């Protein structure tokens, strides 16, 4: 089986989400890394989640227009 069927590791999601978001203590991170080392299922899930986040982030990023940049700069308090 190459895909994901029934989740055999559901409890790990609580650890994986903050791990992906880099929001764990050193101790928790070590625990997550140890689990990923030994669990092929979660490793695959982690790689997919990380790639997906990167993809969404890139796809959803739209640069600010130069016109808006100028308008914001014009909001500055005039120097007397």
């Amino acid at each position: 089986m190459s895909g994901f069927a029934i989740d055999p590791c559901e409890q790990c999601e609580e650890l994986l989400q903050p791990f992906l978001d880099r929001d764990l203590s050193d101790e928790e991170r070590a625990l997550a890394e140890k689990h990923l080392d030994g669990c092929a299922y979660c490793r695959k899930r982690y790689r997919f989640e990380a790639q997906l986040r990167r993809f969404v982030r890139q796809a959803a990023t739209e640069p600010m227009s130069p016109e808006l940049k100028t308008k914001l700069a014009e909001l500055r308090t005039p120097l007397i």
Partner: protein
Amino acid sequence: MGETAPETEARRLAEDARDRVRFEEEALELADQVYRVARRMVSSREEAEDLMQETYARAFRSWRSFQPGTNLRAWLLRILTNLNIDRGRRVQRAPDTQPLEEGDYFLYNKLEESTQAPNPDEERVIERLSQDDAVSALSAVPHDFRDAIVLVDIGDFSYNDAAQILDIPVGTVMSRLHRGRRILKRELAERAIVDGGDAT
């Protein structure tokens, strides 16, 4: 010989002006990053641009309430989030009640099915999605969940910063992220199905 009262006052005004100019420059340097988040919190570019101008106008007016040394980007986004709510721009939807029993891997399995190669790696699987799929799927996520995703995934904020910006507990940020990402994946999977696996 000490300074006269007018000299002291002139010095104070000059220092005040210098601090204000510095604040405004620092805030403007962050505008690209603030816009990146603002753009995905509202549905159109026009709305995002209006919101940015209102945010910066307010920030420049109330610059004294910013505490130097704290996170200016988070402070600006707190203003932006409040303005977005205050102005009633958010079309409030009923909470998302659609079941998510299909699990977290529905999207992966769906994309993998449409990939020709056997046992494709994760990168190949993601390539089945288009940029338009990502943008429209994100905008289909209800606001409360989307705001958390946008702040953490696009704005790179910590759970703590996101909690302060949204004025909710950290645990709520985490649960909104969890549910929001599931909704996002469901929306992406629906688009992948509509595209018939032909996304490029």
